């Protein structure tokens, strides 16, 4: 049996699954701070009453706590030590933190081209110490190609200020993008403490209920990582909430379907795409609180329109404002909302019908329209906004850059067959959005806890990125921060694949993840022959391997509510 728990900002949802059977679901309010433990326990108790916890194989969590923490983060206690070297002038990027620039540079091959200056580092460190900083991110340009500089700075810090919390860019941002590596490292520094509090609550809750199953946390890309690894990389959990909903929908619709997931909330509607049964990954790392990160995430788009959005009449037009002043008018709120329009047209039975008409009247008076006309106009507006964004997402996906001839030739047009609604406000809008897009509409039975289902069915995943430079005779395993040397220059592609596989299996062993070697997938593979003066002098291999992302069970829509 599997348990999935989604700790959201407002509600904590939980489900208990036995293969493809949903045995129990729960929804409890999320409490703040120290009381978070109580919410997790309430949700667990609700789905586990009368269940022998020894039968639990796995408990998977997803959460928006880190996203929320980042967006409301107001402290200024993280300092950045950057080693940008020559190139783009670093001050084009405002990293929003105390930033110190160190001398030194490494190039794209990992060669040291400018040395570090020890005296300079010492001075900078004592300055930071005097200013009271204890959290430091050390990030070098091209550091994934040579971790030496970052490690040396870290060692100097450890020597002088052993109590400081230090994060290295090469461990956190393994892809080639220095500014994003800086942001991601910064966020890792900033979120480590609150994240530890969160996982301590999780650990306590499980110990209290004597649950000794494997514990995982969902990542933004729909994969999961063991709770212990997640402590090193808390930012990977940003947007695990939307990822959970998307995986939930993936489990709740027929396999291989191409669908749009529409999660209508109070003031925003989240959109995600499932292409031939697989959730679409964003081409670039996630943006959080205006910081571009290297965190791989599912392509989720937030449209600032929801059931409780404020409606306003301006001239002869009705406008949807991206804010919420309270519940819908028909539920006793202060202003007309799209929910009121749904109520007038009979798409929902929420709240008071008379108050809903009153709300439409408030809007329509100036336009000389009857409530039904106004309501239709409002719904049209909402549906227009959402469908335009859906179409945009498909367009953006088609226009993603490609760097190989075959990728350009194999780009093709895909359009969804199905619009799947989840979230509180979905009911009224889904069928109309589907009609506009020429698709079927579906609101699966467990739509309300789709996120917890998504967490429960998510497969454990692990990843290893290997970089080999046979001319320079070294290799790096990015996730482990390991830099080793090659024994032989005759190192071929198969050797590289084997080496990556070995490291992945070893990493899996370390974290107790069971992997089936046959299932390991290569998600990125590059081989370049280095030719100098017409002779092959070496090879470059870049390989990323992972255990497959995905879901363990397809539950299907069950009783379909249309």
């Amino acid at each position, binding site marked *: 049996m599997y348990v999935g728990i989604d700790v959201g900002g407002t509600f904590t949802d939980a489900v208990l699954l036995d293969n493809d059977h949903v045995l129990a679901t729960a929804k409890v309010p999320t409490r703040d701070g120290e009381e978070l433990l109580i919410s997790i326990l309430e949700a667990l108790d609700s789905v586990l009453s009368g269940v022998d916890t020894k039968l639990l194989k796995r408990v998977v969590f997803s959460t928006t706590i880190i996203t929320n923490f980042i967006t409301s983060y107001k402290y200024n206690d993280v300092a950045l030590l950057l080693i940008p070297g*020559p*190139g*783009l*002038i670093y001050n*084009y*990027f405002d990293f929003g933190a105390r930033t110190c620039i160190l001398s030194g*540079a490494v*190039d*794209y*091959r990992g060669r040291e*081209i*400018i040395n570090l200056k020890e005296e300079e580092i010492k001075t900078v460190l004592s300055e930071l110490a005097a200013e009271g900083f204890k959290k430091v991110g050390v990030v070098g*340009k*091209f550091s994934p190609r040579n971790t030496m500089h970052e490690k040396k700075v870290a060692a100097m810090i450890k020597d002088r200020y052993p109590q400081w919390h230090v994060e290295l860019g090469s461990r956190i941002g393994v*892809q*080639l*993008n*220095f*500014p*994003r590596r800086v942001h991601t490292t910064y966020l890792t520094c900033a979120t480590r403490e609150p994240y530890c509090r969160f996982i301590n609550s999780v650990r306590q809750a499980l110990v209290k209920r004597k649950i000794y199953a494997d514990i995982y946390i969902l990542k933004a890309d729909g994969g999961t990582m063991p709770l212990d690894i997640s402590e090193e990389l808390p930012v990977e959990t940003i947007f695990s909430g939307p990822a959970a909903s998307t995986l939930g929908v993936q489990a709740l619709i027929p396999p291989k379907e191409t669908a749009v997931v529409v999660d209508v909330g109070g003031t925003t509607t989240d959109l995600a795409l499932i292409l031939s049964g697989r959730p679409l990954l964003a081409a*670039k790392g996630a943006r959080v609180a205006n910081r*571009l990160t290297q965190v791989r995430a599912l392509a989720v788009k937030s449209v600032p329109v929801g059931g409780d959005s404020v409606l306003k009449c301006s001239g002869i037009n009705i406008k949807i404002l991206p804010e919420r002043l309270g519940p819908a008018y028909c539920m006793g709120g202060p202003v007309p909302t799209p929910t009121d329009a749904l109520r007038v047209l009979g798409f929902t039975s929420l709240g008071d019908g008379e108050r809903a008409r009153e709300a439409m009247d408030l809007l329509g008076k100036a336009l000389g329209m009857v409530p039904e006309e106004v309501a239709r106009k409002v719904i049209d507006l909402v549906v227009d906004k959402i469908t335009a964004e859906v179409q945009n997402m498909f367009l953006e996906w088609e*226009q*993603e*850059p*490609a*760097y*190989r*001839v*075959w990728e*350009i*030739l194999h780009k093709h047009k895909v359009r969804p067959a199905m619009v799947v609604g989840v979230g509180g406000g979905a009911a009224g809008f889904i069928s109309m959005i589907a009609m506009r897009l020429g698709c079927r509409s579906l609101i699966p039975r467990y739509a309300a806890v789709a996120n917890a289902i998504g967490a429960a069915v998510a497969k454990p995943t692990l990843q290893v990125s290997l970089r080999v430079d046979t001319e320079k005779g070294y290799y790096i395993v990015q996730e482990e921060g390991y830099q080793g040397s090659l024994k032989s220059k005759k190192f071929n592609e198969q050797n590289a694949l084997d080496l990556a596989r070995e490291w992945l299996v070893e990493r899996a062993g370390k974290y107790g993840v069971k992997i089936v070697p046959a299932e390991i997938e290569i998600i990125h593979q*590059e081989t*370049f*022959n*280095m*030719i100098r*003066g*017409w*002779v*092959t002098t070496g090879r*470059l291999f870049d390989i990323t391997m992972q255990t497959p992302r995905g879901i363990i069970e397809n539950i299907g829509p069950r009783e379909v509510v249309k």
Partner: protein
Amino acid sequence: MTGSINHKTGLIFFPAFDWAISPTHPEREERLLYTRDQIFEEGIMDLPQVVEYTPSLASIHDIARVHFCVPQVEEQITEAHLIAAGAGILLADEVISGRIKNGFSVVRPPGHHAMRVVHGNRGFCNINNEAIMVDYLRCRHGVKRVAIIDTDAHHGDGTQDIFWHDPDVLFVSFHQDGRTIFPGTGFTYELGGPGAFARTVNIPLLPGTTDESLHYILDNLILPVLNDFKPEFIINSAGQDNHYTDPLGSMKITAQGYARLTEKLCPDVAVLEGGYAIETALPHVNMAIILALAGLDYSGVREPDYWPGRFKETPERKEAVRRMVDELMGYWKNRDNYKPDSRDIKDDFYLREKEIFYDTEYFVENQVEKLRLCTNCQGYLTIESNVDHIYGSKSSVLCISIPFAACSKCREEATNLYVGQKKTKKYRYIYLQDKSEDTFVGYDTNNNKDWHS
């Protein structure tokens, strides 16, 4: 273009990581690898001043508008060529529409050695990405005057050939002296056809020329000429083999030199051409060009082994450059007073004979080019082209090209020539390229079949 509403620089980065001429050829998969690493690591694509595009494919029609490919376009190109040509077209469209202020097409394969008639690969090029963009702009957007500034170390002989007789396209090329490098042309006396005199400007530079001379030429020749010509659109054939580390070229230009050059030229679209110092030059030079186009500070872009003042110009070279600039400025100033040599004219046709060497595939093409001297238009052009392949096969083709603003008499004559020659069986293939009507047809004498692109 003036009147741009958007201030972003469009970037198409297409390294064609799965395309090579041959595994160890300079034009191979690895060429843009380190450039990719540098651009990505710097986060260039995330800059608010930069917008990345994915290339679209050029059509066969777009290529037939420029080239006579023997026997047909499809036989001379791969998909990679369509993508590289399509990238330029896409950026040109975006600049014209005002969605971007300028663009840089960092693509492979290159194109500036591809001439009007294409029998095979020359100087790593099959089709001419810039010429295809120019004729696309004229056909689709009604652009009249275009300038192409070729800053590759090799003479842009293909581009020169295509626009030799075209007074509306200014072609300026500076390059390493043709006596010392492929393709062995590009001397100051190559100035264009009788109707387009000095619209071709060649600036051969001695090996070892530095930033200083380059910028002297820019300030005292190229920029004043551009200022006189007043192009509606400027294209930069941005080859990077003038860099001091290039293995094929022997010049001493730096990344900073290239950045300042780009800043001064202000091209609407820059297109990557050659440049084979894939580790030591390309990552830095491409970065420098992108930053200069985007109006960003490029002062931090510098090669690891460069220091200001490393390369100094000799007084002799300075003097030689000064004399050449004066000579070329003289031609430019007298561009409208030129009278062609009467020995080159026969029955109202201006004749030019050419021998073209295909270095990649090792054969020679012989051409007789005839320009109809017309008082009402630029005149139509015919090219008789013969190739003796070393493996014994021969092909003889006739190419007829009608310019964009052709007069009705020239059009009629050219069309009659096409129809008439079909019957003579003198040529294996006959082509009629009518730019004024945007129709391109061909004829295979062996099987009596017409086709159109």
